[in-house]
Every structure is written in C-alpha cells, then in structure tokens.
C-alpha cells in the first residue's frame, strides 16, 4: 500500500499544481464570466482526472465517480464564495 500511496504522488502533485494555477488565474481575471469558466473547467478536470485514474486502474465504480463529483462541487462552491 505504501508503494501505491507514493505511486499516486505524481497525480496528487499535478492536481495541486493545477488548482494553484487556477487560483492564480482567478486572481488575475476579474471578469465574472471568465471566472465562472475557470471554476467550471477546474471542477470538470478534477472529475476527469479521478475517472481517468480509476479507469486506468480498472476499478472504476459509480461511488468513485460520485466521490470525485462531490469534491469537485465543493471546490466549485468554495471558489465561488471567494472569487465572485
């Protein structure tokens, strides 16, 4: 499991880097429509990365899709509270 845990580190770093980049973009663009697109893209990307990962590992289940969707929705709401 330790190997598996570390094996995910590239994806974890990638997701965090994308999230930080998106926050920089949200800081940079003040237009609400542009911000909405960035937040929506980021949320879809989070779901897509999760789906791709589980699909690749051949253990994709509805509960995993829903879990990633829930976190993506939470991400969208929080970013909408911060960046109107």
């Amino acid at each position, binding site marked *: 499991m330790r190997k598996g845990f570390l094996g995910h580190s590239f994806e974890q770093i990638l997701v965090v880097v994308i999230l930080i980049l998106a926050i920089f973009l949200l800081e940079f663009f003040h237009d609400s429509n542009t911000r909405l697109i960035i937040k929506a893209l980021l949320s879809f990307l989070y779901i897509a990365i999760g789906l791709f990962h589980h699909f690749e590992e051949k253990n994709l289940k509805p*509960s995993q899709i829903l879990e990633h969707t829930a*976190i993506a929705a939470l991400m969208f709401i*929080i970013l909408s509270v911060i960046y*109107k």
Partner: protein
Amino acid sequence: MTALIEKFASTSFGKKLAQFLIPHQHNNHHPFLLRHESLFAATFLILALQFLSFGSISSQNVLGYGTDINKSKIISLTNQERSSRGLSTLKESSLLNSAATYKGEDMFTKDYWAHFAPDGTSPWYFFKKVGYSYSWAGENLARDFSTSAGVVAGWMASQGHRDNMLNPSFTEIGISVQNGTLQGEQTTLVVEHLATPIAGSSSANTTSGSSSNNGQPSKVEDSFNSQEKKDLLVSSSADIGKVQEQIASKVPSGFDFNTFWRNLGFGQITTLLLLGVLLALFLFDSVIILRKGILRHNSHSFLHALVLGVLLIAMVRGSLGGIL
C-alpha cells in the same frame, strides 16, 4: 495511537462513532463521513449557509456582494477605539457622509482604487464639493471586507489609518458604504472622511449634502500641484497654509489575524469550520490507511485533503479586504 483508536472503537459509543470517523472493518475501511453522500451533504450545507448568511444581511445576491457593513456600526466602533484611549468621540456629519458618498461614486464611475483619481481629483475636492470648510481633514478607504468590525480592525492594524482614526484634532466623521463593480470586481467600498470644521463654519453642516458647485467632480484640484500631491502621499500629512490634510501613505502587506477574525461573518466561519473538519478527517483517514497498510481502491483521501487544504488557504487569504 492505532491501539488507542482500536480501544476507543470497542466501546458502544465508540463503535457508532467509529463508523463515521475511523476506517476499520465494520465500515469497509471507509468512514461514513468521508463517503460521497456526506460530501454532497457538506456541499449543500455550505451552499445553504451562504444563502442564509447572505439573505439575512444587506446583500444583493448570493455569492455576490454579501457584506454586513453599515455606517453606524463603523462610527460606533471608531468611537469605541477613541474612547478607550481617552480621546473625544467623533460626531457624525451629514456633509461628511455626502462627501464620502461622492468620493465612492467617483471611484466607481472612474474605476480607480486610490486616494487621488486618475484625472487628479484629490480627496479634499469632495469636502469642498459639499461645502465643508475644514482645518483638518483625513480619508481612509476600504474594499472587499465582510463586516464593519473587519473594516475598523483593518484600519487599526495600519499605522497611517490608525493615526487618522485616533487623531485628537478630528471632531467629525462621515462614512459611505457602497456596492458596485470596481476594476471588474463586485465589491463593497467603504469611504471614511474625518475632519475638523473651521470654527464658525462647522457643523451647521447637519443639513444634508448641498453641493457647492452643483456638478460632477471637476478634473482639477484647487491648490495642489502634482509635486504637492506627491509630497502628501509620501509624508502622509501636509500643511497647506493652516489646513492639514492627511491620508495613509503606507499600507501593511502582512497577514493580521485580528483583522481576519473580526472580518468573518457567520457564513464564512461555518464554511471554514466545515472545511477544516473535512480536511482533518481526510488527513486522519490517510494516516490510518497508510499505517495499517490497508489496500483501498475506492477513495483517495490524501488527494482530497490536499485539495481542501489549498481551498482553505485560498479562503483565509480571500477573507481579507484591502485598505488604502
């Protein structure tokens, strides 16, 4: 630590609680609170909290302005700060309120965040526009704050703004709180005008906002040339004859916990708490799973914890307003 958790999980209350919090064999190594049902519930709870907190205050739309800032509260808090230091309290002036409103409108119309407008209009122009003659005048600005206490705490944390608020020479105050779009961003702008009227001309100013020139703020600034403006900005206080006008020249850039804490509304506190709890649960889950060497395909708690951690930092950072 794992032994302690196992012991706690063996009690009847612990067994029930463990189902929600701790990964173990009875919940298929996936705590109920970290399953998608609970995560969706948390998301809807945060959304509901935003609706509730924004609906109960002077907001215009959810996830829009949503601030709890009002004039009387700012004046009262400013006077509390002064009283606690043995200074006289400031009297609200309707003329200064009008001057502050004109200044706020000018900032939204010309789209600038500064004491001086891009066309050179100075803060003191608005005092004269409403017919307020002063011997001392000062201006503090704030944007993107959520509460009145946050605005006052933000100013008090900055030496220049604090000097303005605690200046014993000031006797009157005017505030404007306006919502609008500034530099492309929906914001609540707070303008604070402080002044001492020239003896005799004063606060006869209780009649409201008659404009001295009946027009829009003109481009010019009376007695200031650009060098004088520069000096004023740098030195934070300048003498023009017997008149003293002062604005803060330096704005602190660091994180002030008191300002952050006092600027949190109900919705923000509960959202931050909820995010913090979820983050702690995901991290706890990751540690247990890693230490026990459990192979679990159906969740990536550490990844979720990282994402929530970044969001929490962004939210803390976004909870601070700007002052000038």
